[in-house]
């Protein structure tokens, strides 16, 4: 049976997540121009990664679970990459 981490470590993770939320909201107060979205997405991904690894115990799962957890991300990337590429390469010469 898997029995990982302690209550304290869970709460520490939570504090980290709260901190990152503050950072997200804070960062939104400044205008980084084209970097607004990437910055927001990077912070969100760090948060998501922390939730997945610690709250969802992905850290302790086997390789198979990692494959199933990450493959949809790849597909999502494909879906977005191809559709966006299409949308912005339609200029006709």
């Amino acid at each position, binding site marked *: 049976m898997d029995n990982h981490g302690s209550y304290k470590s869970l709460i520490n993770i939570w504090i980290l997540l709260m901190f990152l939320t503050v950072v997200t909201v804070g960062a939104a107060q400044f205008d980084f121009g084209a970097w607004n979205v990437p910055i927001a997405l990077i912070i969100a991904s760090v948060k998501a990664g922390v939730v997945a690894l610690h709250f969802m115990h992905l850290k302790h799962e086997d390789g*198979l679970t990692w494959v199933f957890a990450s*493959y*949809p991300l790849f*597909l999502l990337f*494909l*879906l977005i990459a*191809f*559709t966006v*590429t*299409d*949308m912005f*390469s*339609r200029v006709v010469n």
Partner: protein
Amino acid sequence: MSQEQEKNYLENGEGFASWFFTVDHKRIGIMYLWAIGVFFIIAAIASFLVRFEHLTPGQTIMTAHTYNVLFTLHGSMMVFLFIVPGVAASFGNFLIPLMIGAKDVIFPKLNLYSFWLYLLGAAVFMIALAAPADTGWTFYTPYSIESGANVILITFGIFILGFSSILTGINFIVTMHKLRAPGMTWDRLPLFCWAAYATSLLQVLATPVVGITLLLLIGERFFGLGFFDPARGGDPVLFQHFFWFYSHPAVYIMILPAMGIISEVIPVFSRKPIFGYKAIAYASLAIALISFLVWGHHMFVSGQSKLINVIFSVITYAVAVPTAIKVFNWLWTLYKGSIELSTAMLYSLAFIFLFTIGGLTGLFLGALAADVHLHDTYFVVAHMHYVMIGGTVFGFFAALHFWYPKMWGRMFDEFKAKIAFVLIFIGFNVIFFPQFILGTLGMPRRYFNYAPEFQSLHQLSTYGTWIGAAGFILMLWTLMRPLPGKAPGNPYRSLSLEWSMDSPPGTFNFDEIPTITEPVYNYGTKIEEES
């Protein structure tokens, strides 16, 4: 307990409830088989009428609107109610646990719920027929937003069916990971299981995208969301992207299990190990992965950008290669074999030939310049049916005959079944081969009316449906009337695990979980030097 063990799964419980609430994977498989059989027949009748309409140009027996409704009914029913859940859910359910040496799938109850969801989705779909859709099975926007038909209900039905598909896929994947008998390593896994595994992956990962797409389409009709409606600043091509992101992998959801079936049938009736086991197994996986990358080849003339067209064309040819490899592997399994032309074998051999034609005509459509001419003509219709009928349905029929003794515990009349095969084979080719020529000549698909110069080819195609229908009825007739006497446990001397038990199997499949020590296709006693 021992009393119960002696009963086979068909005898274990009688009446409606003993089936409807069963968690026995074999009974669930049989129920799927009945359900998809019914929908197949309804959809086939629709196509029969559609073809009949084409006996003459202009109105023959129905109005243009009825025609549009019927081809939509035929397409959507065949795709969503028959062929996608078809082979995977029916034969997959029945066979996977038997083949891997398990007593059931890993989530038996979930399996039952999946079946109920399937029925629920089908029911919603049927209710929608009160104002049947005339959008084509592709539901392209903005026509599907504006059409007066019951598009919301029908797409909601498909949404539910999608969930059934996803849950079945999850069930199979986890079952194959967790419940393989000791010694049933991945390189001893029957190829049908490999195919079912790849299929399940596609079901799990592709279906949600069509789910959200149809949900958004419903939102378009309810709220006017505008994502897919040019009048509201949306983009109809985006709908097509989302739709084909699912529907191209769905083509492989349809064909992969059939490939798995004939990979089982051919070695048994050639008494040879399957040629290139690993190549076929990995090709299944490769197809499952690459098939996510080629959806745009359905959209070469849709207004997609030129760059994306070129990219998709390249990747499309990449997916052609593993498919070609499979065909040659099946072919070479026959080499120096001891070939018995049973009905199941005939269907499998026909699969190889017809699927080859289907695949080769795909090469036309993948080529950008040629596709500009052929897109949305009868060529596409013919190509698709060579893959879906010549491939999937022939594979499905092969399975019906091959596992018939195992499923029902009886044998059938091989002679009549072979006559039925000949009729179906001839009928099929007479229906669809002329359509290739119609297509290259420029006859568009989904046309109620057509120019008089196309009439002779259209008529030929319609006559084919009569031959095919006769064959299909004869096949049903034969299968519905089994020969007297009990079928032996292993009538074909197969080495696969499902034949190692009585026909039909007992409720719990195996009294004791077997231990596997040999490769699954260990035919061939004459040892030759390996190259």
